[in-house]
């Protein structure tokens, strides 16, 4: 069989991978490599009253212990937000610091609070247990609907109502849409919850940093979806070194699904520690850490309204206020790439659409565009209407499938308020 386009060739890479000759980040062992353990917040929302790492620093095999204060003292920056966004009222989105290690306050279970580097992984983990942290617990808010309610816990002093941004696509004619709804023979409404998911790639996240003292250059081995996409912001915004001083290498990767596309605090921690220690430093999360620290997926709450004319057509109708509450979200959402004027898409022929999105901070793990696409519910229906002037598609007397009738009658599974990434 020709090895050409259109042929069902088996994967060339598999023989190596399934016979254990693959090289994933966790397979890398560098001479003199030390091991990192990241101590994480056990509570969702608390003031850090006191951190005492004195005992941990004296534990056998411990090379380096750091807290948020040390990160600040060393001038490391926060993990940045990649995409700017302007609110409906013209103000910029309210960005928040996503520190490499928590400073002053923790805001979700699993947030990195301290770093321990030791000769072995077990020594690092044991020492982390010796770090004494006094938390002054605060009320937590974890539901999107709750986060926007009055009187609930506020995550950041400078962000009233926990609202990250309040955006609309502002492309529909508001008056025409109002009018369409006013004269609609039927308006259907649906509230949808796009449930929050943990990505759970087979290979958990990881990072190994090496440091070449002579050249002043670091090398980071880590599973990514594109090395430059991690290297550039990591070097420039977080580590504050010229990007040619950091080389990022991604060996074999065991699944990513959008979750491994971005910079994480642990990337910065291992590079920083290895430059301090002038030794390679390795961090490999386990599954439980992944559950609380990997960026999670989905989690939108959508309210959709659809106005229909007497024939059940959408085209005289509108989509308003189509409050697509992307109420999702979480602490430190770094991208807002779902926002452009033409996000709503489907095969339906509707006259107009308006959309509004809000994102709320909550005490949950970061949420990003993780997990392979976004769930886009659809009205189960026949194909799109043809444009005027072409053969009419609807055949009188031919019943649409039963599901279509049920759908038009009421429950519309519209959920296209999520759209994916990287476009």
């Amino acid at each position, binding site marked *: 069989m020709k090895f050409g386009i259109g042929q069902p060739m088996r994967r060339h890479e598999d023989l190596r991978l399934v016979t254990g000759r693959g090289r994933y980040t966790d397979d890398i062992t560098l001479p003199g490599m030390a091991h990192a353990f990241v101590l994480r917040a056990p509570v969702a929302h608390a003031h850090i009253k006191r951190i005492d790492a004195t005992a941990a620093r004296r534990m056998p095999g411990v090379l380096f212990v750091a807290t948020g204060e040390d990160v600040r003292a060393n001038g490391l920056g926060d993990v940045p937000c990649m995409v700017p966004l302007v609110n409906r009222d013209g103000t910029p989105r309210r960005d928040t610091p996503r520190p490499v290690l928590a400073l002053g306050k923790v805001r979700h279970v699993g947030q990195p609070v301290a770093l321990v580097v030791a000769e072995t992984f077990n020594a690092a983990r044991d020492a982390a247990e010796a770090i004494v942290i006094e938390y002054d617990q605060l009320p937590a808010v974890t539901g999107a609907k709750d986060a926007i309610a009055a009187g609930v816990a506020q995550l950041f002093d400078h962000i009233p109502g926990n609202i990250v941004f309040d955006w609309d696509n502002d492309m529909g004619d508001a008056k025409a849409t109002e009018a369409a709804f006013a004269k609609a023979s039927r308006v259907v409404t649906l509230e949808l919850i796009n449930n929050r998911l943990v990505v759970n790639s087979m290979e958990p996240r990881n990072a190994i940093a090496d440091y070449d003292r002579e050249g002043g250059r670091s090398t980071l081995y880590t599973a990514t979806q594109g090395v430059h996409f991690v290297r550039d912001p990591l070097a420039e915004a977080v580590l504050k070194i010229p990007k040619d001083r950091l080389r990022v290498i991604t060996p074999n990767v065991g699944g990513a699904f959008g979750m491994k596309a971005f910079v994480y605090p642990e990337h910065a921690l291992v590079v920083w520690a290895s430059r301090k220690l002038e030794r390679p430093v390795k961090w490999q999360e386990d599954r439980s850490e992944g559950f609380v620290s990997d960026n999670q997926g989905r989690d939108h709450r959508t309210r959709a309204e659809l106005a229909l004319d007497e024939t059940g057509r959408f085209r005289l109708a509108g989509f308003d206020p189509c409050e697509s509450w992307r109420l999702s979200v979480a602490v430190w959402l770094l991208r807002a790439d779902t926002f452009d004027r033409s996000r709503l898409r489907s095969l339906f022929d509707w006259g107009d659409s308006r959309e509004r999105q809000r994102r709320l901070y909550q005490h949950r793990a970061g949420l990003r565009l993780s997990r392979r696409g*976004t769930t886009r519910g659809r009205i189960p229906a026949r194909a799109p209407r043809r444009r005027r002037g072409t053969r009419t598609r609807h055949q009188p007397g031919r019943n649409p499938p039963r599901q279509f009738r049920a759908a038009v009658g009421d429950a519309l599974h519209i959920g296209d308020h999520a759209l994916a990434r990287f476009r």
Partner: protein
Amino acid sequence: MPYTSATTLLLDSGEFEEVMNRCMAAAEWSTFPQRRLRSERNDKLRGIGMATYTERCGGGFPETASIEFKDERVELVMGNQEYGTGLVTSYKQLVSDQLGIDPDRIDVIMGDTDRTPAGLTGGSRAIAVAGVALYEAGRAIIGRGSRLAADLMEVSAQDVTFADGVFFVPGTDLRIDLMEVAKAARDPTQLSPGMEPGLDTTHHRVPPAQTFPNGCHIVEVEIDPDTGVVTIERYTVVDDFGLTINPLLLEGQVHGGIAQGIGQALLEHAVYDPDSGQLLSGSFMDYAMPRASDIPSFAFSTYNVPSTANPLGVKGAGEAGAVGAPPAVINAIVDALHDRVGLRHIDMPATPRRVWEALNGIH
């Protein structure tokens, strides 16, 4: 087609009605009532659900691909990243087909900021953008290689044809292998004056338009009213992915995506305690990943209409399964429960408890 949506998207291609008709035929939509009766005789509820989806892929930021000749081997230097989807095989296939190079002589280089250009895998765009960049680099190599080959064979470039890795002059025995041309191109003494040495080529692809993969999923579920357990009895999908490089890997992508979509629809949920903010489903004991026993066999087929947004006609397939599956599964469940209890909506994940509660009027 082309069609501009109310939201200003320009859909370049697609035969949506045909995709739906094919899916309904493959799913035996018209004979569903008989299967429902059969289920009812076994005291089971049966429902059928459909979801159509249209994705938007293949746009966004650029991707860069280089084809470099090294003695007896060829290196494809890519900006984006393989992370389990089979891109390495697909890229080799593309170049092997286009340039007639044995895939065993092709190496794919990725994931090193010192060596590889900027790029990103995600959003079902790897083949539609980076793959197209690779294809364009190959086209440039054929063009430039023809001129070099003409010089080497001392003929006019217009007389040179390229096929299966060989430049030749039809009707003569003049022929020269691409790898020989690449080798000669590295030797300035063999080049005509003014000819730059080397055949290595880089293409930077800035996508001028987006692609619209689309498809139809039809699901049949059976529900045990005593327990609320949902079983997926049939799963049919017809997709339009445009040109396909490797149908085996493509179908694998759809299978994996549907498995994730079924996971979301029926099983998976990151549940946080509303008071403490603790992740309650924080391990595989509590967070229900789909297992092989939760996933049916799929009746998968394609009805591919090439995209006009890129010269390959590729649309993108990575996310499609995960996009179409949740609404199709939920629609099937709603259909099964509607006649019994008038249900019109159920939230994901439709766990046995949620389904049982819906059947018993508990909210």
